[in-house]
């Protein structure tokens, strides 16, 4: 039985990297269809750092960016800063680093798999699977901070493995430093990185213990790098973020509690079956297991418009076959090669950052699943090829070859059509989507700025202030004294109040139409056509969504 052999492995690896590069850079300025407000806030703060050394609120070189009240991690912003500072605020400069780091991640991933198994075929296949993985592409094409943290994470894992094999404290130090950099990159990694580190340290405890004196020095640099971020970990902003996103900040409704207590009759029954650990524990278990469900992985994906791909889940439909094969043969693989245990543990802990949050599934927070899944898919493909080579019946051989290849070709084709054509038409709107329309709005409104006493932009679609700052490339030095975040409470997301003669607030047309010499921009629901009285106001322009629906009415009053 001959295993698949790849001649000229280096050329194949370069080809895989080229595929990864093309998939991550092709049309990044227009697909996803527009910048969402996370991307624009990252970028404008990066621009502000470059120009003034301060964030949008005037804080000098912060390690936590207040932004819209979500206290963003700093790494992506500082990385982007020179790029937007020199080349300006564009879709390309915002999305460049995630695409580049995503491409480099594929190369690093090859090295990790090879380090694990010393099997070039498996490493190449796994890297190829990752290069075209819908899940990996979804978060390495748009400006997602998880792409930055993910790069540092797998860099840390690779260097850790190399340091164990080479008994090098220098490599271990760089590895730990890379792990610390994940803390600077993404909130989810602040939970995941200690877990994966604990797994690695436990798995290789003997090798580390034998060289413990040498490895001690490897802690110096990472600890020094960790100290500055430590204070932000215990800050009220960080705690607020945790409460806002996790189920620990969720209070069960009083109505529910009263109903249940009444039906339970006895207090001790309520305390036994409806106590917080039991109910929250089940909720966490439910969310955790959802990430292994076929609906999430293959058919539906998450509901969030920025995470999903129309018509499919996070993996290709054909990956079901390869994962099923991997599942069948995994036990024998684990017995032959102990590092499979590490892959299984990696997969097992990956959904944990998503499991403790309020969303039933979250593809970004469970992003680390994509790596062990890619290894398993690669293993499934290799095992299938070995099995096909051993088949003698031509008919069965034909079915076994045709079925997965046919399913992959169709699924891959669906992914490309969905990502570039169908999904943008379903996910363009709102803060949960890609917030299409603001660029067009700024293009029309900005030249008219000086003509009006004030310009009022409705906040129904959320985040208009940052789009105006971004597309006007408004000088941060001028914005910082004017910056004010308006929000319901200290834990909710907010809106920028305004700058110059811009005001960002909800429009209430029955009252607002009385304001003179004002330009309004709002949704058709906020400024209905039939309520535009020609005696006091005039419709200047409309902006349309990609599907032809009206996004904004732009109306002036006399």
């Amino acid at each position, binding site marked *: 039985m001959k295993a698949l052999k790849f001649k000229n492995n280096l050329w194949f690896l370069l080809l895989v990297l080229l595929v990864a590069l093309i998939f991550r850079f092709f049309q990044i300025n227009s697909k996803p269809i527009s910048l969402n407000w996370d991307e624009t806030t990252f970028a404008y703060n990066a621009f502000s750092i470059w120009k003034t050394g301060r964030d949008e609120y005037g804080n000098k070189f912060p390690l936590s960016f207040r932004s819209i009240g979500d206290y963003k991690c700093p790494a992506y912003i500082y990385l982007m800063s020179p790029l937007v500072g020199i080349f300006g605020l564009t879709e390309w400069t915002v999305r460049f680093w995630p695409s580049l780091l995503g491409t480099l991640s594929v190369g690093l991933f090859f090295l990790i798999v090879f380090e694990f198994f010393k099997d070039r075929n498996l490493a190449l296949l796994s890297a190829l699977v990752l290069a075209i993985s819908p899940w990996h592409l979804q978060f390495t094409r748009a400006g997602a901070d998880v792409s930055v943290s993910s790069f540092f994470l797998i860099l840390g894992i690779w260097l850790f493995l190399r340091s164990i094999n080479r008994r090098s404290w220098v490599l271990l130090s760089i590895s730990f430093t890379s792990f610390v950099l994940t803390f600077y990159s993404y909130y989810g990694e602040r939970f995941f990185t200690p877990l994966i580190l604990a797994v690695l340290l436990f798995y290789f405890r003997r090798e580390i213990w034998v060289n413990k004196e040498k490895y001690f020095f490897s802690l110096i640099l990472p600890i020094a790098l960790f100290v500055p971020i430590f204070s932000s970990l215990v800050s009220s902003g960080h705690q607020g973020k945790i409460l806002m996103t996790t189920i620990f900040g969720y209070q069960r409704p009083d109505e529910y509690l009263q*109903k*249940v207590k009444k*039906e*339970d*009759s006895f207090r001790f*029954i309520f305390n036994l*079956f409806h106590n917080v650990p*039991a109910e929250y524990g*089940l909720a966490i*278990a*439910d969310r955790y*297991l*959802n990430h*292994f*469900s*076929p*609906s999430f992985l*293959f*058919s*539906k994906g998450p509901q969030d418009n920025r995470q999903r791909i129309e*018509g499919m889940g996070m993996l290709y*439909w054909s990956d*079901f076959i390869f994962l*099923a094969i991997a*599942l*069948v*043969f995994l*036990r*024998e693989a684990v017995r032959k090669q102990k590092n499979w245990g590490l892959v299984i543990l990696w997969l097992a802990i990956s959904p944990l950052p998503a499991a403790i949050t309020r969303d*039933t599934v979250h593809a970004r927070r469970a992003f680390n699943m994509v790596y062990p899944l890619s290894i398993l898919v690669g293993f499934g493909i290799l095992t299938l090829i070995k099995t096909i080579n051993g088949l003698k019946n031509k008919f069965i051989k034909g079915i076994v070859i045709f079925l997965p290849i046919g399913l992959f070709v*169709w699924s891959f*084709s*669906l992914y490309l*059509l969905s990502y570039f*054509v*169908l999904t943008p*038409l379903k996910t363009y709107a709102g803060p949960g989507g890609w917030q299409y329309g603001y660029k067009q709005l700024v293009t029309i409104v900005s030249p008219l700025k000086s003509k009006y006493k004030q310009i009022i932009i409705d906040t129904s679609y959320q985040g208009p202030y940052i789009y105006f700052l971004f597309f006007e490339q408004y000088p941060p030095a001028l914005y910082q004294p004017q910056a004010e975040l308006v929000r319901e409470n200290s834990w909710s997301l907010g809106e920028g109040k305004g700058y110059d003669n811009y005001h960002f607030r909800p429009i209430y047309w029955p009252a607002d139409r009385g304001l003179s010499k004002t330009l309004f921009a709002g949704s058709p629901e906020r400024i209905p056509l039939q309520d535009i009285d020609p005696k006091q106001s005039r419709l200047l322009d409309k902006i349309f969504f990609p599907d032809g629906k009206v996004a904004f009415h732009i109306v002036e009053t006399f």
Partner: protein
Amino acid sequence: MKSDSAKKLFFLLFALIMVILSSPWLWVVVRNRPRLPFSQTGLFQIRTPARLDEINTFQGEINKTGLGVWGKMTVNKFTWMGKEILARALESFDTHYLFFEGDLDLSKSTRSAGPMFLLLLPLVIWSFWDLSLKKRAGVLMLLVFLSFSGALADQHYETFIRLPLIIAISALSANGLVKLLFCQRQWKWKALYFLLLLFEFSRFIHDFYLHYPGRLRG
């Protein structure tokens, strides 16, 4: 040897019967049997107006980009229905359905428990892992084959039509239960596990008698 196999078979059957008798789906079916005409389980309709409309809409959107031929080869009645059938089959393995909420129809599920108990899942995994390579492949193919019964129902997560699959998974869990009983692990861990299983069962019973009737009344 024969008596050992017979003994094992006896315990396996006994465990399977106990698992099925304690399964939430059975309790709900027995309770609601007058209200559950099986004929109301609608069959999956391939050519519904909504599905055809979706295909036409997608083809139209792809056509506008000049990729009409490619679009028609990828999104057409054949591939879209195939995808729908595969999705319905695979959703049979959704853990949210199997262990947490079950059928969408309140008369077929309490909606606070799936057709099986969550604590049986580790036994299912252990039982599967412990099989020989050939048996593992056979069991997985059987489970996938049985899951396609879910594709026959029009409603998502329909339980009755998935009973063969649920019973097959219950058999795996029963096998795991027998292994646990006879394995050499410390009795403290076994006792803890059975205590938790008892807790889950009693939690279901308490919900079934105290809260479920209220939800059923609406």
